[in-house]
């Protein structure tokens, strides 16, 4: 009897591997930056290029860095989610306008609303590259010490916000 079950068990194990394999996204590469200091930079603000921002300015606060662009489709999907998050005043969301034209980026915020506490303008994508950005949108959770604690590749949704990002923000804010 046991011997007869062996092929079934082997089949179930293989089926299990395949099932897990199907649910994995090969585009999602675990970031080596998790639990490392957020790379420093100096960038102009999208709305006022004379002003500069550096991540040090956010020391002592938990914050989200959301990489977006006017040419990015999934960014439009997550925009209302970010608008709602911003209205709740739970955590400051900073935007990184990535490889965009300044006018285009500003037009999006004017038309659909601006969920960002500050928007940084990364015209040539150099800062995005330092953060390991390869698909937009991406969202980073950065803690009070300026350490990256989480990176989301793809759009922010009500689900991943509720299940992953906000619990982490609450936990990090207590420290």
């Amino acid at each position, binding site marked *: 009897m046991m011997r007869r079950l062996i092929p079934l068990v082997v089949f179930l194990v293989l089926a299990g591997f395949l099932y897990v394999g199907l649910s994995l996204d090969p585009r999602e*590469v*675990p*970031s*080596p930056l998790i639990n490392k200091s957020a790379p420093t930079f100096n960038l102009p603000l999208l709305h006022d290029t004379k002003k500069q921002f550096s991540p040090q300015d956010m020391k002592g606060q938990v914050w989200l860095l959301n990489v977006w662009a006017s040419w990015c489709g999934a960014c439009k999907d997550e925009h209302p989610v970010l608008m709602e998050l911003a209205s709740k005043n739970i955590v400051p969301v900073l935007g990184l306008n990535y*490889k965009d034209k300044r006018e285009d980026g500003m037009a999006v915020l004017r038309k659909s609303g601006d969920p960002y506490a500050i928007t940084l303008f990364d015209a040539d994508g150099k800062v995005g590259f*330092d953060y390991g950005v*390869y*698909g937009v949108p991406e969202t980073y959770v950065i803690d009070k010490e300026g350490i990256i604690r989480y990176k989301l590749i793809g759009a922010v949704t009500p689900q991943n916000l509720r299940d992953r990002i906000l619990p982490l923000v609450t936990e990090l804010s207590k420290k």
Partner: protein
Amino acid sequence: MKNLLIALLLVLPTFASAGEARDLADDPVMERRMINLAEKVRCLVCQSEAVASSHSDWSNDVRQIMRDKMKAGASDQEIMDMLVERFGKSVLFDPPVDKETMPLWAAPFVMLLLGVVALFFQLRKRRESALKESALTPEAQARAANLLKEENK
């Protein structure tokens, strides 16, 4: 007329060419060095394609950054380290053997070993059962001995 059109259509694909991604730099030696290096880097936004042959925006950026770094005098190793630092070891087509990637490298050999062990036991069992089948019971042996004795008479 129709035949001529068809003939023209058939000739058309010969004008299409794929080839490596564009942007030839001013320095062909460095360009070759860059492409050699980019062959070893996985395009993260494509599937199973190297940065060297990819036309994606991201790969274009990586190639440009490689060129910039090379112009600034960075070694190949420094450039690879910089990429791994930002995108992880999975950006390399040939990831280094270390603690983290050990399971990846060891898995085929472990599976081979398991297969060999299973084969060994299977063969042994088969031989044993074959021996058992051919083995004679004491009665049969006695009969055979008798038959042989009679023949030798």
